[in-house]
């Protein structure tokens, strides 16, 4: 399996994928810096605690909100790169006679996507930390736990975004169509959260659906899990929806497992 994953990376040579990831992961933190800089202009004697708070706040924003929007797009782009390669270049026959099975290939591709996702969240965190400390507008007091949050959130939201791969493989269309599809999924994910919250505001019975929404659960759980004690007390008072760790992990793992099974099912149909 390791060998197969190595080969997936090998196949990405001379593709602009890694450069694109690097650019995107630098861009987001840069925008946040440009947003925060004017806020702090003229303020003097800022404490380390304040700076740490700002850094943590932006970490939370990126991780929880930006990732919810970004991850389906990222997964869509990655699956276009990885899953269409064999189809477009007619290399199935050479792989299948090695022999590499469709199952092995799908697993290798999803693992490669996961590794690229982890790279992406590491890069974003790295750039955020770099820029905030360069401009002196943030402190990495809770750096380690923030880094952990990036990885855990990234991983969970990646799992929750795997249905995008199912759609990409199912529709088996051009890259453009698939990208539009994943963009649409990302918007739909957000919209469904907003819509559900609206409904729940009108009629609390809709809250019963909250625990079934994987993205919503992941968002709420991670903002709870990675917040400090003071914030937690506040959250409790606000009577927010706070799913348990086991519940969230199980739900996300379930989504990932079902998606993988469907991807394999539809991918096998291509290779006939």
């Amino acid at each position, binding site marked *: 399996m390791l*060998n*197969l994953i*190595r*080969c997936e990376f*090998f*196949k990405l*040579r*001379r*593709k602009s994928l890694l450069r694109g990831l690097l650019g995107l992961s630098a861009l987001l933190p840069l925008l946040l810096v440009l947003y925060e800089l004017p806020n702090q202009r003229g303020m003097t004697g800022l404490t380390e605690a304040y700076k740490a708070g700002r850094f943590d706040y932006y970490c939370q924003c990126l991780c929880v909100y930006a990732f919810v929007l970004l991850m389906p797009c990222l997964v869509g782009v990655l699956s276009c790169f990885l899953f269409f*390669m064999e189809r477009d*270049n*007619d*290399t*199935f*026959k*050479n*792989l*299948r*006679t*090695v*022999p*590499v099975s469709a199952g092995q290939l799908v697993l290798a591709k999803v693992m490669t996507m996961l590794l690229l996702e982890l790279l992406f969240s590491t890069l974003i965190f790295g750039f955020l930390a770099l820029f905030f400390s360069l401009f002196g507008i943030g402190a990495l007091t809770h750096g380690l736990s923030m880094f952990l949050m990036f990885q855990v959130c990234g991983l969970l939201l990646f799992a929750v975004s795997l249905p995008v791969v199912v759609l990409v493989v199912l529709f088996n269309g051009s890259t453009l169509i698939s990208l539009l599809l994943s963009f649409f999924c990302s918007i739909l994910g957000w919209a469904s959260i907003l819509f559900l919250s609206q409904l729940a505001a009108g009629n609390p019975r809709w809250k019963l659906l909250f625990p079934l929404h994987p993205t919503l659960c992941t968002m709420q759980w991670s903002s709870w899990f990675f917040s400090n004690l003071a914030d937690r007390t506040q959250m409790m008072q606000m009577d927010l929806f706070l799913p348990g760790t086991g519940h969230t992990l199980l739900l996300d793992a379930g989504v990932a497992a079902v998606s993988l099974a469907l991807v394999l099912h539809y991918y096998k149909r291509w290779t*006939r």
Partner: protein
Amino acid sequence: MKDCIIETKNLTKLYGTQRSVAGVNLHVRKGRIYGLLGRNGAGKTTTMRMLLGLTQPTAGEITLFGRPLQGNEKKILPRVGSLIESPGFYPNLTGTENLQLFAMLRGIPNENAVRSALELVGLPYRDKKLFSQYSLGMKQRLAIALAVMHEPELLILDEPINGLDPIGIAEIRSFIRSLCEERGKTILISSHILSEIALLADDIGILDHGVLLEEEPLAELEARNGRYIHLGVSDAARAARLLETRMGLTAFRVEGDRDIRVTDPEIPPETLARTLLEGGVELRELHLCEDTLEDYFKRVTGGEGIA
């Protein structure tokens, strides 16, 4: 047969209701070159895809190296090298990188395998040129290199000379011959070009509309079908009666009003001539003729010829 590397029983593939391959019993013997000949759409590629487990047969059995293919793919396929239809490689990699990739997948540790495979087909090692910039002939050569890189015992090559120039064709032909003769490899090769098969194959199978019409050694086929005596006579019907009654001959065919083909070339021509003249039939001409493989192909497929 004991020494068959490839054996199929009643191999059949349906696409919808169309029978692309129908009840094929193929026997490819060890250490020989088997030429599968057939027009476009005859079912050559479909047969080979089934032999490699790329397409599931609708019915029938496939035995490779004496074992059923189904369920033994992991053991059997590493012993097979193949080229199916057009070469399929990653366009963003160079030729060398493409081979390195598959060497990695096949678990071939030494870099020399890639280098020598490239040298064998006449492509440069560690060239900067990407696969997408290759010419059709170079792509085909790379595909052949991929097929032989892991030293397989059996090669399945689907129209391997497609897209090559005449010199390239000759090179690849002698390369394939040497693989068989010097390294003892068994080779199944398909082509729609009859002369190519005639030059290369030891055994020949003729596939037409999914049916394997004939299967036999090329030498035997040439000996049996190759030579005949052509008689030009004034009255073919009468001549036929004479041959039958006076000579007891049955190995002949009447072709039109004035021509007869005697399919046994060993009959002495003077006997034939005497019999006819004594019976009062005028003999216009008498030739010892050699049937071309193309005539033969026309005859067995019952249709037009092949290039």
